């Protein structure tokens, strides 16, 4: 059993509101992700899943509790370039070509680059962006832009990949093709992945484990193992086992949704 890549221990995060009361965004969240695992975090809006991800990325500090990535704090992990972040929007710089967008995170904080960084051109070609290397982001469809954003993260060869609803703005078929692409890149460049989503089928398709969160206050309510074999082929997705997992998760999600509605 390898050491956990991510350990979240009793993390709390409170936001002070306009009227000086506090919103409990995260209440005593514990989470352990073994190295190389793909974990999805699912829950209704307001459950704190994005806040949790931002804390893991070192973009926010918890008010209590600790987070470690590979044994160090998120800030130290960021300084060491061990984190790859894929936000909800592609966040490509509109004046840089696709290739330069993928290269820029490697050009900044250069000293922390790993010795064996993958070739960005090869990665982009593998992701189906071989013809778009020198195009500007606005010349690409939304799906291709998000693909470039994923490659930008993988090009750092990060130990931890943090993804915040990266496919939520895409149509069904684009979404499926990007899920495939993600799994393909992940199988080549292994990383520990935390993937925030609100789609049940996406969580089942991608993950080894799904963490269900509930709002008011934001907390973890259940962790479900997805013991389906990989690769997750089209046949597997149509199988009854796949559907069973979806049903279990959908029930949990409905329960946590009612938690938010009831209060």
């Amino acid at each position: 059993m390898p050491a956990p890549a991510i350990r979240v221990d009793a993390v709390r995060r409170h936001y002070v509101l306009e009227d000086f009361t506090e919103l409990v965004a995260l209440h005593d969240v514990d989470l352990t992700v073994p190295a190389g695992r793909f974990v999805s975090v699912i829950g209704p809006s307001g459950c704190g899943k994005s806040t949790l991800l931002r804390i893991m990325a070192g973009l926010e500090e918890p008010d209590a509790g600790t987070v470690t990535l590979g044994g160090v704090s998120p800030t130290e992990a960021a300084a060491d370039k061990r984190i790859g972040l894929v936000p909800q929007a592609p966040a490509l710089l509109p004046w840089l070509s696709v290739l330069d967008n993928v290269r820029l995170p490697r050009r900044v904080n250069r000293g922390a680059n790993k010795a064996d960084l993958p070739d960005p051109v090869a990665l982009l070609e593998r992701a189906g962006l071989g013809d778009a290397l020198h195009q500007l982001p606005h010349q690409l469809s939304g799906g291709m832009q998000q693909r470039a954003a994923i490659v930008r993260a993988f090009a750092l060869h990060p130990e931890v990949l943090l993804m915040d609803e990266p496919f939520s703005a895409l149509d069904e078929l684009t979404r499926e093709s990007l899920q495939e692409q993600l799994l393909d890149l992940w199988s080549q460049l292994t990383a520990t992945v935390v993937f925030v989503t609100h789609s049940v089928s996406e969580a089942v398709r991608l993950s080894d484990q799904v963490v269900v969160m509930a709002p008011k206050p934001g907390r973890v309510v259940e962790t479900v193992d997805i013991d389906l074999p990989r690769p997750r082929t089209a046949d597997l997705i149509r199988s009854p086992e796949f559907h069973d997992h979806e049903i279990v998760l959908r029930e949990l999600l409905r329960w946590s949704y009612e938690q938010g509605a009831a209060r």
Partner: protein
Amino acid sequence: MSQSVGTPPATLTPPPEVVAARRRRRRLAVLRPAYWMPFAVLLVVLGLLWQLGADKLPYLLPPLGEVADAVTRDPGYFLHHAWVTLRNALLGLALGFVAAFVLAVLVSELPVVRRAVMPVAVVLNVTPLVAIAPALVVAFGFGPEPKLIVTALICFFPILINTAIGLRSVPREVLAVYRSVHASRGELLRHVRIPTALPYVFAALQIVFPLSVVGAVVAEMSAAGSADGLGTSIQVASSMNNLAVVWAAILVLALMGSTLLLVVTVLQRRVLHWHESARNR
């Protein structure tokens, strides 16, 4: 689910002569009467009204012929004074730009500087420069210095405000990506913040290029003893009731302002080809 026989390909390439004709048509769009006629008609109407006015009220407007005569009689005179004004305007603009840009970077990076500088900048902006100009002339004399300072001051504020806003307009998610790889402040500024601010900077330049001419002329007019510049020409000629020279100088100034605006606009289209403003035309 086979493709039906009649489905055309996704892109069509018409015969070369059709493509060439389309290209020609787009290039020549400005030459079509529908494009330039409205402006030309207005110009002719305004010219006729002017001539009519000049006929009835010779102390109000000089006949256009006399204005043209004034220029053709001594083009060197206008060229010299226009050059002096243009030089003052552009040097003052450069001065104001460098100062405002550097300060905008400091203001957006350091809250202490922002809190100290912004109130002063606002007060400076609401103080009429026409009122400051004579004081600067007293302080610095009739040379180029007060002209450069007035021009720099008039250009300063729009550049400062726009650049400061632009530098802070980086989308939250872009910041998150570059913070997650621990990009330094300098790297963020150079690779992300300054390019993000460029459209805002150009919006300021579009205001400030023509404004620099205003600054230079106001300063020239305040310095009654100046030797040259179109502002000085206007004052000298108007004190001698020489309306033709006054209007000739005004027209040269208008032409100068328009040319500067054109230069910025062309530059902007080149530099900001990736920006919405260049695409949604």
